[in-house]
């Protein structure tokens, strides 16, 4: 009973960290990786709430398809936010 609660707390804090990193990152490729990390911690959250059906759809869409789609879009624009190199 205690393990799911520890997983819940860890995964939700981890997702908060990943979201903050993704929002403040200027390198868009790194931001995609952080966003995928946030999705993985949400998947852990959903699994610890024992909803395997949602986990399957969530993992494939938000870690796989969403990241791939954003990578395709970044390849059509600039890698760094604001146009310049990261300082």
């Amino acid at each position, binding site marked *: 009973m205690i393990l799911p609660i520890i997983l819940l707390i860890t995964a939700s*804090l981890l997702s908060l*960290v990943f979201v*903050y990193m993704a929002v*403040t990152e200027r390198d868009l490729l790194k931001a995609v990786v952080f966003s995928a990390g946030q999705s993985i911690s949400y998947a852990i959250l959903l699994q610890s709430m024992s909803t395997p059906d949602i986990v*399957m759809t969530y993992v494939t869409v938000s870690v796989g398809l969403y990241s791939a*789609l954003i990578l*395709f879009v970044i390849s059509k624009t600039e890698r760094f936010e604001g146009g310049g190199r990261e300082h």
Partner: protein
Amino acid sequence: MNTRILVLILLVVSALSVSIAASLLLDIPVPRGLKELAVYYVSNTIRDTGSPEAVAAIVWDYRGLDTIYETLVLYLAIVGGLAIFRVTLKTITKTPIGLTLFSKTSTKIISLLIATISAAITFHGHLTPGGGFPGGSALAVAAMLIIPVFSMYALLEKGVTSTKLVALRGFALTAIGLVALLPVVRGLEIVTNQKFYPTQILGIPVGGSISLYNIFESIAVASGFIAIALYLSIPEEAYKTGESSA
């Protein structure tokens, strides 16, 4: 950079303290059993729908018509996506170059594994968690791995073109519509499951129409997403010079 870490630590600490304070101050009751509706689904799903998986049964049987309309929404969304990138350009073929041998070999292994898992999710969708949409999008992820590593032209050389994929998608969606409409021929309601489709074939439980819906939905989702990925990987120059191969 330092302020970034400082703000991050502040965020984590405040999130922790707020949640601890909330759990101490507010006495939130923990659910100790199943609700009445959940009990109904758990005990009656297998009799009503022939599928032991309650979620698949709700999605494709109890609330079947909703899911048909949801599929229609996805169909229109992908039609919109294709309409934006639709180009009628001259066909050229380039030699596929791709990445190094290491990436190619590992991608071969990984995409085979993903395709196997996708098939397992789809074909067992009426027995275990999963179903058509997760299975199909897992297959699309495998293709989206192949496109950057082997280059788009490797897929095109194998005969996987957007036109064929869109046609396959149309076929799968038509099949979903037919599966939903066929019971009407015998005077039953639309999206009827157990009164029209068999519960098992040769002793294998198929859950009536649920497995059919899952298979066709996965084909439709996979081909739709792969077609979008192929259109997105057309290089920018192709739009300017008027030459493409997709």
